[in-house]
């Protein structure tokens, strides 16, 4: 068990820090969170800067145009960019972290050449069309239909919880191509051009008041068969190739940020007197243990990925279960420290508290994650 970084890893860190110190001052000011075109422009500007410096697609394989970095280098990248206050992937999220890797793994050479370089350069933005109003936790129950007509599929249905749909160029879309097959075996993965006729995007206002997500309605939208990645009806497997293996790095930046928030919270508590409340002070101490352990668990998972080439997604379930609840506890504790000020939407901590409520729901609810842990790690029988 070794927690020290190698000379090579430290050299990578030093190079990155040096570049961040010169690059970040050149970034324009952060855009208004409600101005989608401005957000896209900001996020793609950052992506272009990363591309120019050779950091784009750090964790992608070299054959896909990435740098083929190790999981540990990726951890260092995420840690250092967060500490330096650099932007996260933002609108590039789906392209860099899901659609891109899926195309890299399952696409033809022509598909890789068409779609991957624009993602790395920040020229094109992807969104994700997976969930539907009646297909949430039971994603494989999705009903958006695609019917073959010559060289096209004709797609009708609706998708929900699609981030960045307003400004995306492409959507990685799961559709049902065989309604008679068992539900996992009739699904196909398509790249949907977001400017195709028949697409309506409606912003979805969340309880935080903002419109981070959208609903996407598809009315006989024509998608070329050439936009299909993988075989017809093999889309579930194509999607899971990327979803079921990760490198333990999904929440690195967020854990770094939570630890900083906790330290700031302690200072606030000392300044406003709530530090003298034994229960509250000890709760802050408990959260210190919690987030330190989550950082160590991240290093543990990343090291496992480095040794074995990937962490099965089930290891990610253990982390996600604990982290999503810890994040909610952090912002609930912040509210106790702030007292009446916690009711002020003008404070970042109030907005963070509201957005933390999605963490135990998005990307697999805590209940689904517990099923995964119980069945796939502990070997308990499937059931209800």
């Amino acid at each position: 068990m070794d927690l020290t970084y190698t000379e090579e890893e430290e050299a990578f860190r030093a190079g990155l820090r040096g570049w961040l110190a010169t690059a970040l001052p050149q970034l324009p000011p952060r855009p208004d969170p409600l101005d989608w075109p401005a957000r896209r422009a900001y996020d793609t500007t950052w992506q272009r800067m990363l591309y120019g410096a050779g950091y784009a697609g750090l964790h992608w394989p070299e054959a896909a145009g990435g740098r083929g970095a190790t999981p540990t280098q990726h951890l260092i990248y995420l840690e250092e960019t967060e500490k330096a206050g650099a932007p996260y992937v933002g609108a590039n999220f789906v392209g860099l972290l899901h659609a891109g890797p899926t195309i890299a793994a399952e696409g033809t050479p022509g598909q890789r050449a068409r779609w991957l370089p624009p993602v790395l350069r920040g020229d094109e933005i992807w969104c994700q069309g997976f969930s539907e109003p009646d297909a949430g936790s039971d994603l494989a129950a999705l009903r958006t239909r695609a019917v073959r007509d010559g060289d096209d599929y004709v797609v009708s249905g609706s998708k929900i919880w699609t981030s960045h749909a307003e400004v995306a160029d492409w959507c990685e879309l799961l559709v049902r191509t065989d309604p008679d097959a068992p539900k996992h075996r009739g699904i196909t993965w398509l790249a949907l051009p977001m400017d195709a006729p028949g697409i309506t995007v409606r912003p979805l206002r969340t309880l935080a008041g903002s419109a981070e997500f959208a609903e996407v309605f598809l009315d006989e939208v024509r998608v070329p068969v050439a936009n299909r990645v993988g075989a017809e009806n093999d889309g579930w497997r194509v999607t899971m190739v990327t979803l079921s293996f990760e490198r333990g790095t999904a929440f690195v930046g967020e854990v770094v940020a939570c630890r900083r928030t906790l330290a700031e919270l302690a200072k606030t508590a000392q300044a406003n007197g709530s530090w003298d409340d034994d229960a509250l002070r000890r709760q802050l101490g408990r959260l210190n243990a919690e987030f330190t352990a989550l950082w160590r668990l991240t290093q543990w998972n990343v090291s496992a990925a480095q040794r074995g080439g990937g962490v099965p997604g089930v290891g990610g379930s253990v982390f996600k279960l604990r982290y999503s609840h810890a994040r909610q506890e952090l912002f609930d504790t912040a509210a106790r420290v702030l007292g009446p000020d916690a009711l002020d939407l003008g404070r970042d901590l109030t907005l963070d508290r509201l957005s933390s409520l999605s963490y135990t729901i998005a990307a697999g609810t805590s209940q689904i994650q517990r099923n995964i842990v119980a069945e796939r790690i502990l070997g308990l029988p499937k059931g209800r």
Partner: protein
Amino acid sequence: MDFQLTSDQRALKAGMRELLAARFGRDALRAAVDRPELDRTLWRALGEAGFFALRLPESEGGVGLGLPEAVLLFEEAGRALLPGPLVASHLAAGAVKGAAGGETVVTRVDGGLVGWLAEADHVQGDASGATPLRSVDPLTPLHRTGGRRTTGDPEAVLLAAAEQLGSAARSTELAVQHAQEREQFGRPVGSFQAVKHLCADMLVRTEVARAAVYAAAVTGDAEEIAGAKLLADEAAVRGARDCLQVHGGMGFTWEADVHLHLKRAWVRAEQWQSAKEACEVLAAAL
């Protein structure tokens, strides 16, 4: 960075598990419950295996290994519910004659409590006026003393945390095993989500505690050790509670081992550094 066990560390851990399976299996555990005396033959066998002398330099007859390796052995000890003043005797190796080899059993007064006082050959700290109490844990005789703990010894805290980790992992296994075998309503109770989710949460607490305990062993940092103890205490106590619940009525019997894990976890949660003390250390570090 390579935060995973080395092959030597895996072998050491497996060797300890084999030794304990052979020398302190379930029959021995239940015999010890019926007749709680310190098994000196076993104590010397632990000494010969290097359990106490693990961290002494080879030039002094030790094994020359470090805290991470000690933590792996103590995890196995906790898993097997191995009784005796293990932490005090391990820490006394090299300082008290005979402790390293397992000839001398050493205990230590800690926070108003001292374990195995009547059985120990050597007592560290002031045990004058100690009065016996009827220990909740049948495998840990306890005395109350007048003193109060000022600061916890980080190494003792860490080794106790490692025992809690082993106990938490074992409780998880026992719960899963029972949930797979026990049938009600015509199917294994582990097929019900209400039971499944208890088991999943046990594993999550155990694995988070594992990362915390192992990392604290590598860094040796007192604040990180406090965090490890806090999380391992929770994993062990809540794990045993949930294991008891999964066992249903059987879990409330003397015959099932579940209560032995719970009671020992309660004792260890009070030893060396309590949750309150750990939280204060962790708050002060912010």
